[in-house]
């Protein structure tokens, strides 16, 4: 029972982080139709900017604020310089350009910070909390809470604010959005900026658990099973998908086999693609061939 609770909490915490990472991914896909393979690199950049800002002696809240500002600028810059010229190109080309982007970002981070794993400065409360007879690390609980808050804020943003509604309009139909006076360019820029911001928070949580190193970028790849399971363009889908994948990995690792747990998300991914390619909550618009 204690193992079960422990695995569940860890799984949910990982799922929450995955959901945050997947959120950025879904945002970009929903608004601009681009599959962003650089999401892992965004997590990496986010984690390292916070790490560097704290290293300069900033208070952690300021460090996060600085990282968010940098993320916004970076996201807009990338959209303008790299993705804008690719509009209308084939999916192969767009996928490859984001892969190239991931390499560049990882290379830059490596030049500045090296490859040695660093410890994330502690500002998330550590320790253990008793839950149904099991001791669970507080930082995991914190990750769940933070992810819930951020995802909730994004949901509000999409339903309540003018910009959020504009983004959904563009996602729905670019031409119609244009005729209503919505600037599609600005929405594209905003999608990338917001994705980068969500990656800062995701990167912060990942780095808090695994340490600040190149490993953080690897987290970006398990995002694919999450978004495919939840539906590529669905925000609630990222939460459910994140939770399912997070729990599945932990249960497999706990009850079956550690090595198997790394590949289980991809097996789920293939099965989902075979049966229901648009995922649990995605819009049914897949092209059949």
């Amino acid at each position: 029972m204690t193992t079960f609770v422990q695995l569940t909490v860890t799984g949910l915490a990982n799922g929450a982080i995955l959901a945050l990472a997947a959120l950025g991914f879904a945002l970009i896909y929903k608004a601009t139709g681009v599959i962003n393979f650089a999401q892992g690199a965004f997590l990496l950049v986010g984690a390292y900017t916070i790490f560097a800002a704290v290293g300069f002696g900033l208070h952690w809240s300021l460090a996060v604020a600085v990282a968010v500002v940098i993320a916004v600028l970076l996201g807009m810059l990338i959209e303008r310089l790299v993705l804008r010229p690719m509009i209308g190109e084939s999916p192969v080309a767009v996928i490859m350009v984001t892969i190239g982007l991931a390499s560049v970002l990882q290379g830059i981070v490596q030049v500045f910070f090296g490859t040695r794993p660093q410890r994330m400065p502690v500002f998330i409360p550590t320790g253990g909390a008793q839950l149904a007879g099991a001791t669970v690390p507080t930082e995991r609980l914190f990750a769940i809470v933070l992810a819930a808050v951020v995802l909730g804020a994004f949901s509000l943003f999409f339903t309540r604010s003018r910009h959020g509604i504009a983004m959904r309009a563009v996602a729905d139909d670019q031409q119609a959005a244009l005729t209503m006076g919505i600037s599609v360019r600005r929405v594209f820029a905003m999608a990338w900026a917001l994705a980068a911001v969500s990656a800062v928070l995701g990167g912060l949580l990942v780095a808090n658990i695994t340490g600040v190193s190149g490993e953080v970028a690897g987290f970006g790849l398990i995002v694919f099973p999450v978004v495919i399971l939840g539906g590529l363009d669905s925000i609630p889908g990222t939460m459910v998908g994140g939770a399912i994948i997070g729990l599945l990995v932990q249960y497999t690792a706990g009850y079956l086999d550690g090595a198997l747990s790394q590949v289980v998300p991809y097996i789920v991914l293939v099965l989902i693609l075979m049966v229901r390619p648009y995922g649990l909550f995605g819009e049914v618009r897949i092209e059949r061939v």
Partner: protein
Amino acid sequence: MAATATGIYHRSYRSELALRHTQAEYARLTLAAAVVVAVPFVATPYWQTVANQIGIAVVGAIGLNILTGYTGQISLGQGGFLAVGAYTSAILVERLGAPTLVGVVAAILMTAAVGAFFGLPALRLKGLYLAIATLASQFIILYAVRNWEFVTGGVQALVVGTPTLFGFELNTDFRWYWVILACAAAATVAGTNLFRTGLGRAFMAIRDQDIAAEAVGVNTVTYKVLAFAVSSGFVGLAGALTAHWTTIVTWERFTLDVSILYLAMIIVGGLGSVSGSIYGAVFMIVVPAWITQVAQDLRGQLSFLARELPAIQLGVFGLIIILFLIFEPRGLARIWHRMKDYVRLWPFRY
């Protein structure tokens, strides 16, 4: 052909079907052949190793280009397919004592079969969904390699003996060069001729418009699976060559980075072009090797450069992909084409 001719005119079907039309093309081919033959005699050991890597990459890149460039099915599973080829051949030769040639042929067939199996999602998925499905196949194949220990040896390296060919023991880069060159040349000829047959034309029809292809009688189901099989056959050969040349097979050689490297090769070289695959393979292998060399030479003055070498390689790699995609999406093959046109039409622009 007279110097004032403004184009190439065919007077018979024979001349139209020929692979090469002008004397200039024959001259360039001869020149290229001379360079390729001269390379192992003048290259330093470091560049000889690089030349062998290029040869193997050419075979793999042509394979991937058949699938991605000509049939339009993106694959991120190249690394996994290379692993299938490498392990099949290595296991057959090392564990079961089969002759190397049998091992290599078996590797080609086995990889073709595995490729066809992992190509099945392509029957229902296109574009980015297919990219993600093949990404999954990459992870699943590598998982199998790492954990199916009694067959693959798991995470341990599998050591392969040096094979013998025509009485020569293939134990130096110089000897291997000729074997790899022969394979690369065969792959090039096969790749070029493939697109003069009905099979190759069917692939291109699927790429251009799959529904239209179906309407004119191309069975998209059969041909998509065939495209994966044919492409993976080439990749299997590349994998088997890697196994026997390096004599050590480990899963680390076949990670997702390798899949991405091969995709980069065909994008930089030119999608849907056999010669482009060659240019791309040369470019993507030579540039990192050259950067390494420069960093080694400058180690004294700029120690920073040598220390940060892997990071710089990574950044430059990404930058090359981005710049090519933005400024010349059709790659080096297209640039070469434009250069030829410029010379041919000079002093006119077009």
